[in-house]
């Protein structure tokens, strides 16, 4: 029984071989070579592009959709038809010194590592923050940490709830709104001057920034 099947199988494969062979013979040898080369080149190009995009996405620049109301009125303002898409610059991932107060950053939350939030970076290490509803009235941000807050405090799950966030969790900063086209603009740095006392060892780089516009209060 087995033999029979095996033989038919062999026979079939031989048939297929002959078939393929004939097709190859029918075309000119030059053409076949160039054809096969173009196939492998195409595959390689596809792989190359995928890898290039994934590295670009992970290390240089990417874009993401913002959902939720915690950054109103800066992102997703009331009355906008669709969620904003923002451009993310990945350079803070490599060099944490490049982070500046007042920028929007994206970071993995401390409660759930699979969740990524976008918030405003309010204070860096050494600054003293007057909190809004945290267990301590005033907090000195420890080394290697930062203080992040949403503009819309009521609906924001930020440092006022979980405390200072390690800088290592930050994976990029939002620089531009790229969609919808009507809201195409670069994101403005803002800073809550009344609530943050800067680290005395550092130069003052935030005095020229406009104050944060808070959401519904």
């Amino acid at each position: 029984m087995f033999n029979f099947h095996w033989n038919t199988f062999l026979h079939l494969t031989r048939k297929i071989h002959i078939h393929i062979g004939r097709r190859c013979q029918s075309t000119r040898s030059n053409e076949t070579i160039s054809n096969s080369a173009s196939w492998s080149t195409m595959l390689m190009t596809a792989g190359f592009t995928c890898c290039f995009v994934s590295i670009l996405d992970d290390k240089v620049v990417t874009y993401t959709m913002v959902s939720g109301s915690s950054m109103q009125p800066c992102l997703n303002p009331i009355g906008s038809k669709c969620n904003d898409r923002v451009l993310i610059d990945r350079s803070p991932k490599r060099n944490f010194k490049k982070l500046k107060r007042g920028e929007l950053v994206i970071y993995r939350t401390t409660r759930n590592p699979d969740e990524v939030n976008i918030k405003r970076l309010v204070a860096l290490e050494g600054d003293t923050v007057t909190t809004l509803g945290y267990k301590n009235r005033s907090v000195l941000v420890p080394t290697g940490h930062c203080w992040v807050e949403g503009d819309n405090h009521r609906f924001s799950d930020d440092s006022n709830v979980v405390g200072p966030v390690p800088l290592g969790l930050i994976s990029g900063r939002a620089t531009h709104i790229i969609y919808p086209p009507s809201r195409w603009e670069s994101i403005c740095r803002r800073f809550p001057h009344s609530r943050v006392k800067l680290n005395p060892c550092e130069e003052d780089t935030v005095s020229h920034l406009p104050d944060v516009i808070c959401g519904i209060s």
Partner: protein
Amino acid sequence: MNTSKIWQRMFHTLGAAFIGYTVLDSSIQISVFSGPSMEPTIQENDIGLVEKLTPYKKFQRGDIVIATSPDNPSIQICKRILALEGDRITSDGSYALWREKRVVPRGHVWLEGDNKDNSTDSRQFGAIPLGLVHCRLLAKISPKVEWLATSNIPVDSS
């Protein structure tokens, strides 16, 4: 061999190198360890094989992991996971800055070095967020090959 063939071969080599780099960058890496905190499991200048494919929720107690230090984001630390979220930790008194019992909060892990006397770990900075943990140590490949991924931990401190 004509010019186009050379170009093609060059393109293929470069492409393969690039694809290999990308795949390895997101899956398996080789790293050199320094510092005394994981002795005797890992000595100074040992070389290890680490993988980055484990999802955050799949880390287990006893895994040796590499994480970003919560004190300084440019430093990577290599420690052992002693407890996951919800576990209760009691100080063993040897290096105690605190005496009370602690519960590891949601989304956090408790990391400690194997060398309890000389290790800066969760006993100083507390439980760290899982988002800081990057990769898991699979094996030691130098000075001798040793599989480390599924080792049992001393369960005296949890």
